[in-house]
């Protein structure tokens, strides 16, 4: 039995910055909503328990901000690994729960490089890989890497598996 090659490629270091930016935006929106609700609640005399819950949420926001803005992006970037060979795509990521998935090339149906405004700032791309039933993405790749990978996967994914059933049909025709 072959020993498997662990995926070794890493994603761009700038991913940390992108994630930080996007989480700053997310957290501030969340905070604004909580503060807005809290003000409304106090002004219009909502139930006491609603206000208590809102206070708890407001207190939790800084904690979650520290985690998601300062700490999480570093580890997430550090842990992300991917590998692509002729037969398989391997993805490995996660901090508390590490997930290692293997997707056969023959099951890949599409691959696309995608860029949002934040990623554009750092000239990065996210690679989306769609299979028959699910979709996976590799975040934050440099343009060169993303495009090279895209065409590599597209090349390998062109080969389709023959199911027995096709063979039979062809033989009988």
């Amino acid at each position, binding site marked *: 039995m072959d020993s498997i090659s662990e995926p070794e490629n890493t994603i761009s270091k700038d991913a940390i910055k992108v994630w930080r930016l996007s989480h700053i935006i997310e957290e501030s929106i969340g905070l604004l909503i909580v503060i807005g609700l809290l003000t409304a609640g106090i002004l219009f005399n909502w139930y006491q328990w609603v206000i208590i819950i809102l206070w708890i949420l407001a207190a939790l926001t800084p904690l979650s901000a520290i985690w998601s803005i300062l700490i999480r992006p570093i580890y997430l970037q550090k842990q992300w690994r991917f590998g692509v060979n002729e037969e398989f795509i391997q993805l490995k990521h996660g901090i508390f729960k590490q997930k290692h998935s293997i997707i056969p090339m023959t*099951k890949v149906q599409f691959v696309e490089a995608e860029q949002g405004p934040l990623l554009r700032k750092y000239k990065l791309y996210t690679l989306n890989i769609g299979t028959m039933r699910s979709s996976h993405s590799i975040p934050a790749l440099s343009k060169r890497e993303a495009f090279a990978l895209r065409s590599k996967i597209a090349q390998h994914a062109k080969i389709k598996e023959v199911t027995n059933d096709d063979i039979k049909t062809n033989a009988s025709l």
Partner: protein
Amino acid sequence: MTLKRMHPFKIMYSFMKTLKNSLFILIYLFVLNFNDDSTFIKFAKIAFLMFLVFRFIYLVIEWWNTKYGIKDRSIHFYQGLFKKKNRSIPLKQVQNIQFNSPFFYRMFHLTSLSLETSSTNEEATLKFEAINKKEAESIEHQLDPYKSNAYLSGEEYDFQEPIRSERGRESNRNVQFTPTRKDVLKASFLSFSFLALIPILVSTYHEFNNVIHLDDNLDGIWAFLTSSWLIIGTAVTLFVIIAITFGMIRTFLKYGKYEIASDPERIYIHSGLLNERSFSIRKEDVQAIQMTQTFLKRILGLAEVKLISAENINADSSEEISTLYPFLPIKRTYSLIQELLPDFQISQTTDHLPGSALFMRMLRIPWFWIISTVLLLWLIPQWWYLSLILLVITYLLRILHYRNTRYVMNKEFIQFELNGLNRTLFITNRQKIVEAEVEQTLLQKKFGLATIRTINRTKPIHHEEMKDVSVETSKIFLSWYQNRKYEIQTE
């Protein structure tokens, strides 16, 4: 290509469905408020009747405009009144075939036919709500290329003269299983296992009664029933007899006439005494096999075998029917799977979980217990001791499950087995696995454990996982999966 319409009965069918869907309005307007002369009710009645008339006209037009035909090895479907729609589905794509003939359909020699395809979009199923049985069969006939080629030779085929090679077909199709009377009796025994609940229900009722006095609300019915043992006895016996008869009749109607047959290409399941149903699935499309035995089935030596296939449309009906037979005698099960699906080789599941898995499992937070305890202490605090019992059961089950969980990777097959109170056995082939996954939480990492997971190409996706195997096993699992590259054939 001659285009054909559905049987006109389709109009009746759809109309009945409309009536059924508006049953509430119907009862409200014409039963509850039958004698109400207020303007609102009057108008509502008229509006509703108008709706029904228009609906009927619409259904007639819809029926008139829906046509189908078979040409160039695809089924063409034309429908739509304002927006014309034309669908064509290559016959090759059809995976499962399902016939459904309720009792009143059978009186008119009708059936409803569903063709399930592997397509991923919503319209994966082609449904002929009401067509002549002969016609449905001839469509089925054309689906398998090697069969239809024999007499079609690629030419277009219309339904004017259903060509039937009944004898040729019979010789191909082998009946593999029909339940004996004893099997059905056992099965019906399972269907009234709920009777065991009666004593529990009665005692629960008593307990509750002490707390919140339900009796007062039930107008003393209960008081009357419990007034003498004779009446209790009669009532309970009567109830039991009714339940047993009902259960037995139901089981016999559903599972009495049952037939599992197969030919080289497909598996055919035929069931039902009054409401006939048949289902056929292409062998290659079976992604995995799942065998389950509940505790009671284990005692009776029965098992349920489910074929997991790409398409499981509307979970309500097909879920059930892709089950081979829910009450297969266990002795017959393995040989039957061998005969039906020689592609799957069930072997002895030999590998155990490592010792550290037990620690891992004991450390997991017992969410179910916590939630039920909170609920219990909140609602009925005087029953606090139940929480302790539940805790003990939870941990005993964990030990039991740990000891009885097994897996094996044998050639191209992977097999997961849990042999606790219930028994489940899952087997699939690495060619049919579209994704393999290994997951590891921090705690699992401490113990050198991981979770392995297979994903089969079905809709919805079928995940099957084995928690807490050793890290080495998870590595073997990944490389085992990668070896699929030597087996698959590529274009």
